[in-house]
């Protein structure tokens, strides 16, 4: 089931009653979530991700705009009639009910012609439990389960009615690091097995990039970019997206363009055809640096962190907007010394140039 958001806007009255202006949590969203895909809604805290999710689920009414499931306009449809499954950040499992009762709870709400017999309900609950691999825990209570198991129960409860759209609000934030890795693969597997269009909200870009078919980046209620994770990473539309995606973060420089060349101060870095002369911001991904004795970029070496597969080099350059530059290089290319100067050349594909006022990415020729 594809989900279409059309001019979707949500305004909340300001908490501070003295300020009459509304807070715009979601500002004029227009995008289409294709059928059967896993979508990551990504953005820093307070950017309106959860509100967007609530608008899709129907828990919040939009101030303006429409929501479509397939061709159905569901804007005025109540949550229970939309056919959505929602998994809450804290799972919201009923603590006094067993796992089985929790999973069966949505089914027991069905009335009239949809009413199911006890056997069918148990059968469906068991199927959902098997899907998330908790079928041996059916008689436990949520308090007796680990965080990861509770998460699975919550997903099973959301899936048991076979929703048209599955929504997950920060599904991994309550889990520890190891479990997070495991669970995100699990979510991907469940999504592939059921083929249900799934939207999940996260502030963790790694989480979103690793399992999403598509990611949507937002900031302050404003849609920034949507695309395949790798595409968004490689071709960010603006400085915010470039800075938000990737760990370690992209290194930002004050730079200028002269006669088709990019300069950091006096250092002539590389040709940037197609960009007008003037001051710009330049961003270089940590993996975009190559150790090169004759490279154009010279930095003061501060520290070297060996992390097994990779080596992280911390160094400084006066043009850099942050104190330190973080460089990731392959560990085979060992550094000769641990202090003094180090020189790099820059991979053109890992360099992004942004307009100094609008912070929009400036397109180059041949990249």
């Amino acid at each position, binding site marked *: 089931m594809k989900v279409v958001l059309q001019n979707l806007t949500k305004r909340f009255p300001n908490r501070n009653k003295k300020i009459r202006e509304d807070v715009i949590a979601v500002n004029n969203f227009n995008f289409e979530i294709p059928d059967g895909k896993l979508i990551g809604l990504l953005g820093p805290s307070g950017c309106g991700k959860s509100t967007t999710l609530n608008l899709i689920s129907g828990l919040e009414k939009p101030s303006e705009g429409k929501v479509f499931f397939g061709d159905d306009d569901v804007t005025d449809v109540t949550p*229970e009639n939309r056919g959505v499954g929602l998994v809450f950040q*804290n799972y919201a499992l009923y603590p006094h009910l067993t796992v089985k009762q929790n999973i069966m*709870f949505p089914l027991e709400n069905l009335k009239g012609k949809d009413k199911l017999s006890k056997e069918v309900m148990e059968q469906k609950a068991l199927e959902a439990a098997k899907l998330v691999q908790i079928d041996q825990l059916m008689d436990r209570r949520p308090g007796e389960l680990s965080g990861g198991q509770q998460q699975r129960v919550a997903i099973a409860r959301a899936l048991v009615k076979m929703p048209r759209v599955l929504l997950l609000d920060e599904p991994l934030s309550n889990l520890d690091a190891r479990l997070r890795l495991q669970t995100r693969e699990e979510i991907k597997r469940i999504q592939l097995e059921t083929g249900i269009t799934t939207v999940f909200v996260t502030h963790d870009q790694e989480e979103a990039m690793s399992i999403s078919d598509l990611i949507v980046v937002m900031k302050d209620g404003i849609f920034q970019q949507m695309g395949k994770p790798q595409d968004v990473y490689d071709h960010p539309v603006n400085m915010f997206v470039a800075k938000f995606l990737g760990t370690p973060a992209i290194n930002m420089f004050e730079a200028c363009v002269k006669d088709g060349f990019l300069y950091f101060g006096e250092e002539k870095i590389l040709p940037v055809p197609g960009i007008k002369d003037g001051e710009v911001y330049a961003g270089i991904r940590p993996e975009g640096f190559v150790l090169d004795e004759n490279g154009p970029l010279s930095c003061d070496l501060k520290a070297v962190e060996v992390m097994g597969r990779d080596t992280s080099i911390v160094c400084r350059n006066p043009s850099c907007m942050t104190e330190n530059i973080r460089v990731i290089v392959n560990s085979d290319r060992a550094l000769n010394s641990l202090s003094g100067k180090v020189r790099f050349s820059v991979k053109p594909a890992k360099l992004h140039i942004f307009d100094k006022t609008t912070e929009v990415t400036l397109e180059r020729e041949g990249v």
Partner: protein
Amino acid sequence: MSKFKGWLYLLPALLFLGIFMIYPLIDVIIYSFEENFNFASQTYSGTGLFNFRYVLRDPYFLRAVKNTFIIVIITVPLSTGIALLISLALNSIKALKELFQTVYFLPYVTNTLAVGLVFMILFKKTAYSDGLINLLIKFFGGNSVDFIEGPYWAKLFVMCFYTIWIVLPFKILILTSALASVNPDYYKAARVDGTSRLRIFTRITLPMISPMIFYLVITGFIGAFKAYSDEVAIFGSNLNAAGMNTIVGYVYDMLYGDSGGYPSYASAASLILFAIVFTITVVNLMVSRKTAIR
């Protein structure tokens, strides 16, 4: 040394508890087995179960037990139920919520004498007026009833009405805060699943606040068994004459009433009350533990 220190810290509390609680308790138990104990001369004529036998055969005591049980059985469930309804209503309104909360809490901070006066105006027949309630009854074509000195059921009605009204504010306070502390995500989850309002109440709200309800029922039972001052506020201090005495009232009368000076009977009666309250509280706790969520 550290062991000794621990006891040293406990000493002040133990001392006061010992003098003002443990010692009197033991004393009461001793009195209850001593026949015709006299405070002034500190003498008694024998030991045994005579005091208990006397109290259990005393029609005044049996009347008091009956009154007390009626008050308990009627007021505890009713007051808890009404408090729950009012709390649910308070929880679901937004406008004027604080105003209503204050209004419902007023009886709790109002002086008992003032409350007694209000009930007089409502119920008491005087030379000048039949009381507000009687005016209402007459308005709807009924016959006026003397609620304070009239038939037993009328007196019981006023008694229960008063008791419920006086305990409501506290229960409402506890239940509104219990309701407010239920995580709203449960209700959101229920909404997405299309749960009916009745089912949300019975399957989510009620289990979530059940520890508080049990707390209120248990303390309500204990409080109602100890009813006395409310009765005095309405019917005056001669409760036996009004036929509205309670167990605690009986104990008080035996100690200090006109007939006064029977500490042995008073002790026996209070021990019987203790046995009743103890049994019922244990049953309550067992039921609540069985149904409580882990």
